[in-house]
């Protein structure tokens, strides 16, 4: 596979994985609306919810990065393009690190 088709294939795999993960997000968001601290920690102390949050952050923010990059490439001329794509990568990376750290603490009690 060439670099381009590898990228394309990876993006489709991520998108397919996001079908169940975004369904989980809807359910989790609805369940946690108005939840207090005890209820929210109880929710994330269940390993399945912690793992779902972890996978959602990793796959979802990879998908976010590739989607936002496509939009930038479509509409932003070469000048600001590189900077914006860099900011997108850094932002998504920071989000992944934040959620991994949060789940490690809340779910796996490090």
């Amino acid at each position: 596979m060439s670099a381009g088709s590898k990228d394309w294939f990876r993006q489709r795999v991520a998108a397919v994985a996001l079908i169940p993960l975004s369904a989980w997000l809807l359910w989790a968001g609805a369940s946690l609306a108005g939840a207090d601290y005890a209820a929210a920690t109880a929710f994330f102390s269940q390993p399945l919810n912690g793992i779902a949050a972890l996978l959602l952050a990793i796959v979802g923010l990879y998908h976010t990065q590739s989607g936002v990059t496509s939009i930038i490439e479509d509409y932003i001329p070469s000048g600001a393009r590189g900077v914006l794509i860099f900011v997108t990568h850094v932002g998504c990376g920071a989000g992944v690190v934040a959620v991994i750290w949060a789940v490690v603490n809340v779910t796996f009690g490090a």
Partner: protein
Amino acid sequence: MSSKSKLRPLSPYMLGPYYRFEFQTLMSIAFRLSGVFMALVLAPLGCLWMLMLVMGPESFAAMQSFMASWLGTAIGWLGALAVSFHLCAGIRHLAWDTARFLEKPQIRATGWLAVFGTLVLFALTLWVAS
């Protein structure tokens, strides 16, 4: 960047003289818009929410009181709508990637199916939240 790639044209804007505005135009714009909303608002807020939960009961209470405010509530509803729509419209795009449903009547039909699916998912989410 080589001088050749600098000369490459950008995508034509969908709103403008290039395309006639129709149902599919709206679906395409809404697909991108829901993605942009999730990228700029929902994802940062979700990461912040997780961090506030780890920081302890006081931080989390402050986060939840923001989520209960009119702005937080609006973001929650719009977020549920954006995720529901992006999910349904995204499945449609994945189907297209397998070279299926590309005839005009099928494009229209799957478009309405995605709109219907969005409403069902959105209603289910609100029902779970209530």
